[in-house]
């Protein structure tokens, strides 16, 4: 989780990722950010996030993104 927070902080250092649950709904992350995150996650955790998983529910918070990574690693 710390590594993921590090990746997210690198994009927008001023966002409170530990508590924010509306990263997509409040347009804090845009499509460019999402692709940057996926590229970083792919390289850091060796997991591929398919396009079908790019939905607000998976990217609205660091916790939901972490849960997605965990689920994809388990599959």
């Amino acid at each position, binding site marked *: 989780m710390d590594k993921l927070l590090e990746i997210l902080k690198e994009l927008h250092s001023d966002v409170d990722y530990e508590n924010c649950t509306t990263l997509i709904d409040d347009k804090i992350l845009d*499509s*460019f950010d999402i*692709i940057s995150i996926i*590229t970083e996650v792919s390289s850091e955790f060796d997991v*591929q996030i398919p396009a*079908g998983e*790019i939905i607000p529910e998976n990217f609205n918070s660091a916790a939901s993104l972490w849960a997605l990574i965990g689920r994809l690693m388990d599959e």
Partner: protein
Amino acid sequence: MSFVSLGFLAFLAVLIALYYVIPGKCQWMLLLAGSIFFYAFTGWRPLVFITVTALSTYAAGILIGRVNAAGNAWLKDNAGSLDRETKKAYKAGIKRRTRAVMVICLVLNLGILAVIKYTDFGISIVNGIFGTQIGYFRFILPLGISFYIFQSMGYIIDVYRGKYAPERNFARFSLFVSFFPQLLQGPISRFDELSKTLYGPHRFRYETVARGAWRVLWGYFKKMIVADRMITAVTALSGDTAAYTGVFVPVLVLFYAIQLYADFTGGIDITIGIAQMLGIDVAENFDRPFFSLNIAEYWRRWHITMGTWFRDYIFYPLSVSPGMMKISKWSREKLGQAVGKRIPVYLSTIIVWFATGLWHGAAWNFIVWGLLNCVVIVISQELSPLYTRFHGRFAFSNTKGYNVFQMFRTFWLMGFIRVLDVYRDVPATFRQVGTMFTTPNWGRLFDGSLLGLGLGIHDYAVIAAGCAAMLTVSILQNRRPVRDRLMAMPVAARYVMFAAAVLLIFVFGAYGIGYDAGQFIYTRF
């Protein structure tokens, strides 16, 4: 059958009356019959094309559903005896089969679109490069084909991704593809959203129908009073490029921005309003786009359903594809982290904007239009750290006045890119824009030339009043929906206002000889 015709209004009145009389479970069947009747006015060939799309997409959806169901049942039955690797391999096999079905469906439908829409463009390129004289096919583009094919392809991709189960009833699916209010110019709906209300049943509710009627009326106001009145001036300014240079170029940019906005948003207002009168929720396609502070925001607020379609079905899959991930890895190693991580995003952005341009039309002006949008978005993205520092350092950049400046800047920047659409010729567009600096001729603004564009003083006054009304509604909408205010008024006042609005459209609407009121700009895409 055009929205702007008495025939359509009669069709709509009969359909709505019948809709609320027949049993609720039959309402969607009436809508399907009405949609076929509506589309049949464009000829029997378009009906064949839309049937092929509906049938092939429906069949592909069913097939994907069956493969998934059979696979999942097998996995469930054998859950105890399978190890993790075997399960993984089996799931991958299912995915391969469903992907093959989806790809065949995509190739068939996008292939049809490509052949009809782009063959002559391809031939013109070949003829231009090799000096050949290959003849043109001059296919007639079925109205709305770009919209209903994109909507259907969104459906099949979603079914493949497991976002929802495929629709099992072909007639119900056909209504999703052909729902008449949105058939010709969108919005490009998603099945999971539209299907919530499309199939009813819906009981007559005065407030819902009245709110829909107000929205329809507002659409006709924009279309007939502003957009159609502007046609003659836009045609004159873009048609005679020798006469209308210099200062007339920004005039054209302004006029076309007003015409396109009133035409497209007006058409969508009519679409959404009709759907609402039927109790059906159609996705919003605009969110006051001319209030955008930058181009990226503009594209999140203009033709929203097209933008999200390209994002979800092209930009995302392309950006996270294994090929792009390899490019990303390679570019990080060779070019460093900072540059390397931008490569997949920007490569995908270029491809998406190229495709967006091509979607709008088979011509270079649309492709250049798409790529210019891309260039501005990428530059803005690269400069965003600078903007952040700028806003942090200078307090005035966070004021309302500065926001207005940003809106003004975005409006004109988008306008100058958009003018490629009306000149329809790339070199001519750049030449015309160049004359603003070489021969501006500012004086011609005041020598009566503007009255030689087919518009008299009274036309300009009507357009100005129409624009003021659109601006006022947009500002009011930001605080409280205008229709909420209308519905809160006493009943008698509402009826008087509605009648006055209808009268206004009849008196000031542009129709009759000289006006092509039948054609909405976006129906040709």
